[in-house]
């Protein structure tokens, strides 16, 4: 019985799933144990029955609406999470766009705070390479703010 405790769970293993020594020991045990041999025979006889039965039930069901329902739900999900989904798919592009934009926004806030109530408005343009050129609209006219590269 103690041997059965060890070997019964090995019954039903596929080729290569047991260590060679385990497989040999199991074979020897089966040769001497009618109970385990009967269980092994039933296991072999019913192998695959569950899979066959479940796939047969799936095949018997009308799946015509399934894919349309999935596509509709996926479309609805995409519409809901449009921006988030785009950000998720294009993380690098999002970062390359958002970083300079946020920097520019921070600069605008800074300029407006510094400008106080003197009606100074900061405009900004984003170059294609992501460089930012700032144009400060003041009471004395527009002032273009260059970076260090332009000044040198």
């Amino acid at each position, binding site marked *: *019985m103690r041997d*059965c*405790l060890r070997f*019964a*769970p*090995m*019954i*039903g*293993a*596929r080729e290569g*799933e047991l260590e060679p020594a385990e497989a040999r020991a199991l074979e020897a045990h089966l040769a001497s144990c009618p*109970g385990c041999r*009967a*269980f092994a*025979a*039933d*296991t*072999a*006889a*019913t*192998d*695959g*029955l*569950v*899979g*066959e*039965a*479940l*796939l*047969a*039930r*799936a*095949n018997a*069901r009308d*799946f015509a609406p*399934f*894919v349309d*329902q*999935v*596509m509709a*739900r*996926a479309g609805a*999900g995409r519409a809901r999470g449009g921006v988030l*989904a785009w950000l*998720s*798919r294009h993380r690098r592009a999002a970062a390359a766009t958002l970083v300079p934009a946020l920097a520019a926004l921070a600069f605008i806030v800074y300029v407006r705070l510094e400008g106080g109530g003197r009606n100074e408005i900061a405009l900004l343009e984003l170059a294609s390479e992501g460089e930012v050129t700032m144009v400060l609209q003041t009471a004395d006219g527009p002032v273009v703010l260059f970076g260090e590269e332009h000044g040198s």
Partner: protein
Amino acid sequence: MPPRVIPFQGLVNFRPRAPVSPVEAEDLSLVSKARAGDADAFRALVVRFQRKVYALALGIVKDPDLAWDVAQEAFLRVHGHLAEFEGKSSFSTWLFRIATHLSIDAVRRERTSRKDDIDDVEEADLAGGGEGILSTALGNDPRENLLRRELAGQIQAALETLPEKHRTILVLREVEGLSYEELAERLGIHKGTVMSRLFHARKKMQAVLRRYAGPALARRAGEEEEPGPETGGPRGGGSPRPPGERAEE
């Protein structure tokens, strides 16, 4: 005639791994297109796997409508995370992993773990009754056997008698064909636990099927014996023992 240019639709986005089968390569090609926003490619993936995902979910959650929802949810999760699929495993492995976890979650939402979800194999588990009846009944070529088809019709009822852990592992083994190692990885358990859970699952399934096969065999034996009441029992010698003497958990 100008040369025909065929755009490369290969696996440029995926890291190399073990050689892929043509079917897997086709899956990955569809995934690649779906990631780029090709709805038809994603639709093709759904159609390709919908029945198998449903079968897997049905085996675990038992309820056909819940299985339908779980299967759909699995495809939606896949759709939402296509960008994260790195191709380290096959697409089907990824999809079935998601479907498995969704199915288990669905079952666990409905009930808490039961006492009979044990994994250890004890001496009482080895005792049974009527072992050998199924192999005798199903004969040497079980796939051609009428009784096998009849038994398949009882599988759903038999599966429902199993605790979730045993049902899940048996379904994964038989529907998806996972190995011990793959089952251990999928379920986050040791290989030894995989083997003992499968043992429990098979033992219980066979006990239930025996209850059906025993009377069916006896019925047939009776039909065969009608002309001559003195003849022996079914193949294998003697009438089948009444199955399942020991109450299954």
